[in-house]
């Protein structure tokens, strides 16, 4: 279980996270929804150590990860698919995947994982020698997810995986999230597409201006009036 308590982040004078707390139980899908600038991405970046949090605690199965280096956090099994895909455009699919396994050194298993990911994304196998920059947005997102899986995560954090994708790819991405989760990987998902995210999630947290305003199971939130009005464009 990944447990975040009172996490606080400042960007200069801006208080981006105002002491948020959330729990990500093992094997579940947890989603963070909210408007632009609510602090969703900051939360993920602070957990993985890309942004230094000012105070609070990040506890991972009893181990304190607050203030740890990104490399150490990735090695402990938490990995982030950053927002906006961010594949390595001048590197081939193979090289991108190999970099996903940067924190590992079990060669044989890395190769097995590569084949497993090719099974999950057959498009990547077909084009494994092609440069990632030549891919469409959806394909790059698949590569970004595949690359993250190469680090053999126990917790996969995804920042807006459906951003800017065609409806077909959005559907595929959420199918893949379910599939990854069914292999035992815990997923922490940040999404603008609240409806799709809440449909797959076990638990959802709603963020507003750097704080969590309320939470509940995915189904509860889908039925909640406040969520429907603010994020689902209904009622």
């Amino acid at each position: 279980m990944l447990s975040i308590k009172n996490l606080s982040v400042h960007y200069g004078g801006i208080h981006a996270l105002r002491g948020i707390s959330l729990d990500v139980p093992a094997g579940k899908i947890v989603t963070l929804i909210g408007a632009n600038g609510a602090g969703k991405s900051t939360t993920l970046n602070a957990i993985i150590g890309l942004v230094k949090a000012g105070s609070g605690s990040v506890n991972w199965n009893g181990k304190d990860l607050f203030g740890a280096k990104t490399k150490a956090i990735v090695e402990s099994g938490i990995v982030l698919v950053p927002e906006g895909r961010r594949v390595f455009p001048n590197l081939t699919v193979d090289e991108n995947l190999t970099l996903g396994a940067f924190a590992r050194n079990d060669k044989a298993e890395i190769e097995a994982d590569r084949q497993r990911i090719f099974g999950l994304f057959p498009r990547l196998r077909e084009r494994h020698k092609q440069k990632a920059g030549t891919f469409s947005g959806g394909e790059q997102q698949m590569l970004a997810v595949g690359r993250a899986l190469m680090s053999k995560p126990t917790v996969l954090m995804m920042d807006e995986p459906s951003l800017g994708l065609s409806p077909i790819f959005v559907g595929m991405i959420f199918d893949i999230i379910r599939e990854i989760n069914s292999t035992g990987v815990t997923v922490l998902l940040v999404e603008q597409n609240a409806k799709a995210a809440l449909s797959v999630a076990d638990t959802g947290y709603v963020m507003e201006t750097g704080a969590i305003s309320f939470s509940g199971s995915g189904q509860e939130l889908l039925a909640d009036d406040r969520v429907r009005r603010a994020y689902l464009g209904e009622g």
Partner: protein
Amino acid sequence: MNPGLINKKPSMSRNQILTFAAACAGLALLFVFDSTLDSFTLQIFKLCAINIILALSLNLINGFTGLFSLGHAGFMAVGAYTCAILTMSPEQKEVNYVLQPIVPWLAHIQLPFLPGLLIGGLFAGFIGWLLGVISLRLRDDYLAIATLGFSEIIRVLLTNAQTVTNGALGLKGLPRFTTMWWAWGSAIVITVFLVFLIKSSYGRAFKSIRDNEIAAESMGVDVFGMKVLSFTISSFLAGIAGGLLAHYLTTIDPKQFIFLKTFDILLIVVLGGVGSITGSVIAAIAVTISMEALRFLDGPLDLGFVATSGIPGLRMVFFSALLMVVVIYRQQGLMGKAEFSWDALARIGLLPRRGPKPGKGGL
């Protein structure tokens, strides 16, 4: 089993044979050049090798790690001066340091060329590490300005440290250690080293930083550490090239290492392809030779409709124009980020797709 003399042999072994043949041919060529070329042509040939090292080392930071650094002249200067001072004989030092004598602890040191060269490289690498730790928190233009400033600081220090570097007078009469074999031997060793470095996981980490720093960091790459490593290796190699250059020219002074020297190297890197070892090697040779071949442009010219009585520096105009054309029409340079490979040659039809006879592939 006869390893692949008959049809359908795996392309791997064809490539190995080709590589071996090319290596032998290259070596033979060096022998021939060394014994037949006149001394002027041989000097230019040596300069090609030194420029290869310089271009490759700058390409390692700028092309492969994506750090816009302009401090190369400074690292060269450190390597050149260290190597020169360490290898000069005590008598030579007495002759050179006329304004003020050299500091006593350096006066009686005299090392052979190889240790001098390596210490020069290591010292440049150490300075590079130091500068890297300080300045690599900057990026893009800011890093370029910081490194440019650094290289000027080095030059000013060299000019003013009279008792160590002999100041603006420079050092003269250095032994001519940089033979064809030293120059090309170093260039070949360094090229091979870099090819393996780029293919290793370190090389992949460098390239991932170039492509996307945040993604690289979230994969667990130690971005800052890798940047410093790349910077240090590059400075080390620039220092080696500086040492070779010192004993090639046999005279050095601080003015040689003004920041314009960095731009000469940058020209080679950009023309060859930012992020291509092959491109840097080819462009280093081509630019070095054209610098000499175009020397007639500096002399009196008669184009029929206009005649000049010799404009010194006109050949540099040619390179400036060439650079502009490349930047406008072919930003990726000669090679882009591609590298030479036998398979690539086969793809564009310069080699049979499946070499039927290994003998045929020799040259």
